[in-house]
């Protein structure tokens, strides 16, 4: 190594105020940095929603058609062919709520798993808290859920139930649901970044969950016979989260104990997911 004359002799050098960019910051400072870039976290999914489906004739209407068609198929299979419809009051509304709420979780988590890989260009160009990537993914799915909710409201009026005071609790239910979804996305995002095999596995996990969370038939119908299986299935916070929506809108029964458990579980998943994601903060976007 050739070193030429040092133009800055040691005695004259001032190195005050230098810091490392790789220092791990406190969770508080990290969250503050995310909050500072909240406009960014929100613009990202909005731009994306606008440019999605641009190549299709119906455009953004697909955000609505997709879950409606899904619900239609489940109605045929479970409601008509398998006769679940007769066991549940107001089955159509009950089913639509389940399908839409479950789809929010499924799309948020599978989108979250792929989100880091999909934002490589952005991460290569700019330095920002990487948690914004799964967060903005979750926000985007929440936005389309907002539109889908119009269908739920329409169904509510069509079936003659109408609004009740319980609707005021809807923001709380959405918040809790989002905590669960975001926590799941953080975990899926980090796992998928380390092991790309994850994106092959995630769809299977989500499909299994779809059939065990009471989306198209009440969990009691099939899992109620064995006490242990019944508990394991119903301790899944997603079962209770979906039930919260039904309780708010239709007035189905609420199990207080399991609901409290779901509340704790949802925030525990968010807390764990956030920490789990942050461990690899400086590895995302490396390759």
């Amino acid at each position, binding site marked *: *190594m*050739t*070193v*030429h*004359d040092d133009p*800055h002799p040691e005695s*004259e*050098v*001032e*190195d*005050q*105020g*230098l*810091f*490392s*960019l*790789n220092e791990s910051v406190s969770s508080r400072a990290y969250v503050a940095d995310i909050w*500072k*870039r909240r*406009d*960014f976290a929100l*613009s*990202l999914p909005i*731009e*994306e929603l*606008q*440019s999605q489906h*641009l190549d299709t004739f119906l455009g953004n209407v697909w955000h609505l058609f997709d879950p409606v068609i899904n619900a239609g198929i489940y109605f045929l299979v479970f409601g008509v062919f398998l006769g679940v419809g007769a066991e549940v009051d107001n089955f159509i509304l009950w089913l639509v709520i389940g399908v839409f709420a479950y789809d929010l979780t499924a799309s948020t988590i599978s989108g979250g798993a792929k989100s880091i890989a999909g934002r490589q*260009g*952005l*991460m*290569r*160009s*700019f*330095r*920002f808290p990487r948690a914004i990537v799964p967060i903005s993914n979750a926000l985007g799915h929440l936005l389309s859920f907002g539109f889908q909710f119009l269908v739920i409201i329409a169904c509510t009026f069509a079936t003659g139930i109408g609004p009740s005071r319980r609707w005021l609790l809807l923001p709380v239910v959405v918040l809790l649901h989002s905590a669960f979804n975001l926590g799941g996305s953080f975990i899926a995002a980090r796992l998928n970044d380390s092991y790309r095999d994850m994106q092959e596995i995630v769809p299977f996990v989500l499909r299994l969950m779809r059939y065990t969370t009471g989306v198209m038939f009440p969990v009691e119908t099939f899992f109620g016979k064995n006490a242990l299986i019944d508990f394991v299935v119903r301790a899944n916070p997603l079962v209770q989260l979906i039930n919260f929506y039904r309780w708010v809108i239709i007035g189905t029964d609420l199990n207080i104990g399991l609901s409290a458990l779901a509340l704790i579980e949802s925030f525990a998943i968010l807390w764990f997911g956030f920490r789990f994601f942050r461990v690899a903060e*400086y*590895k995302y*976007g*490396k*390759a």
Partner: protein
Amino acid sequence: MTSLSVKVDDVHVDYEIFSERRAGLRQRLVGGKGSGRRVIKAVNGVSFEAFRGDAIGLLGSNGSGKSTLLRAIAGLVEPTSGEILVSHEPKILGVGGALMLDATGLKNIKLGCLAMGMTRDELAEKVDEIVEFTGLGEAINRPFKTYSSGMRARLLFSISVSIQPEILLVDEALAVGDRNFKDKARVKIESLLANAGTLFLVSHSTSEIERLCNRGLWLENGKILADGPIADVIAEYGADT
């Protein structure tokens, strides 16, 4: 009194890559070894100090570790070992930096600025100036994916310098710009240096480096071969190649 802006202390950056020939599934699962992973030492023990007003040109052949070093300084890649200290958060500008391909150039400017931490108000204030600086005209409302590499570089450069950065890292990003834009970029970089900023420039054009830089770093195989006044380092580099 001169003050440090970047201090790089015995930095190593290793990459794990997957080689084409993979071991059998059984070996991968049972052996742990032979998973097809190989470690590449992209930066292999680099130390130097950069000062305010320094314009450092990085020389070296393809794959010598220049880009990785810049990305480590920018905080985009964590060093495997060693330490990098900076006085301000650097802005990096590289080719292939893409934002949202389907969105228009204008929307990309907005996203980029927000990503850097601008608020909506600051953005509203600056956006016209940035659009003006890109010189893209009507094309600013076309999707980013329709841009040529030169147009992309203009857009990214314009975003990066919209907040006067104290430390600017430029990785081959000016090479694709046309004459007119290179002149504009040079003026911007000179004003940055006049304000006691620090520039790191990776370029395969030694003339561009000579024009903009006062100091040279020659990197080969992830190690520094020479560090000194730009003319001397270019002379050594030229003698070798």
